[in-house]
């Protein structure tokens, strides 16, 4: 097909789904054949779909999306609501300053746990990040649609969101964590589910794994 025009640009845009080296090879192959736009698009999208499917034969995409992003988003929404409600209650009684440290520490736990979960999601399976984000967004959107509050109270559900996204970004860039940091994160990872125990013990124990994962990978990197 002619390597110009709107049709070619759409094929090039679709080829963005492929790895850079493969993208060049495929676009080159298409440039020297006389396929129409639709067949060229089918070629590119078909290859991208096959590549994605082959990724799912590994445990990593499953662990990142179904094993962590989905249960963590449900858990963190509950924690976010509880922590922000605690803090709001404490702020109403500002004369008792000693009461503030407890809700603040809980809020810190939520933020650090969300960062760590995001980091693990980003580093375990970078190529299927879209699926992990989908597994996180769908419960969030559902809960937001059912949330009884109005206005800014919706934000209570999503206190974890920005730290989680920050963690995903750092994990995706394969930032290496020092052993000291990972031990601290692992301890927080144990403490956070124990502190809330939402969804029962099995659920809580399942949520320990990201902490152990960061500790184990940091040790291996050293």
């Amino acid at each position, binding site marked *: 097909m002619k*390597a110009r025009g709107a049709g070619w640009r759409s094929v090039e845009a679709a080829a963005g789904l492929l790895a850079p*080296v*493969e993208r*060049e*090879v*495929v*676009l*080159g*192959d*298409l*440039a*020297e*054949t006389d396929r129409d736009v639709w067949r060229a698009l*089918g*070629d*590119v999208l*078909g*290859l*991208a*779909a*096959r*590549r994605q499917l*082959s990724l799912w034969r590994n445990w990593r995409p499953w662990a990142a999306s179904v094993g962590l992003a989905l249960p963590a988003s449900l858990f963190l929404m509950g924690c976010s609501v509880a922590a922000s409600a605690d803090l709001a209650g404490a702020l109403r009684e500002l004369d008792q300053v000693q009461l503030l440290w407890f809700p603040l520490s809980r809020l810190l736990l939520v933020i650090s746990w969300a960062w760590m979960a995001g980091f693990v999601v980003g580093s375990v399976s970078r190529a299927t990040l879209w699926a992990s984000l989908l597994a996180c967004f769908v419960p969030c959107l559902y809960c937001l649609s059912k949330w009884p509050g109005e206005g800014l109270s919706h934000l209570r559900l999503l206190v974890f969101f920005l730290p989680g996204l920050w963690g995903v970004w750092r994990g995706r860039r394969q930032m290496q964590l020092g052993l000291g940091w990972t031990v601290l994160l692992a301890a927080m990872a144990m403490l956070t589910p124990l502190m809330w125990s939402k969804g029962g013990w099995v659920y809580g124990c399942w949520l320990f794994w990201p902490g152990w994962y960061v500790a184990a990978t940091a040790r291996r990197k050293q």
Partner: protein
Amino acid sequence: MVGEFEFLILSAAAHLGEEAYGAAMREVIETNGGRTCSLGALYITLDRLEAKGLVETWMSAPIQQRGGRAKRMMRVTREGVHAAREFYQAVIKISSGTVWGESRRSRLTGDAA
């Protein structure tokens, strides 16, 4: 043993020799094999063949006619030749005595006469 599509790719690559790469192999498979061949199926199968050690692939230098893009060249290895021969002999052997196998033989005999 290799599969049918893997055999087609090995055969196309053997036909093309030093000029075996994606677009050319697709052309040969579609023209001589009588079937459509998507680039997705081609490259996924090529990866599998390479993982089995039946082909070698490498990137060529950028080529002007392709908009300055490189080709993914390929070559059949000795193991690939052995695997393709094994598949071919199995097809010939299992086809002997069948209608399609006999018609092929009589056609060849007729051609010789």
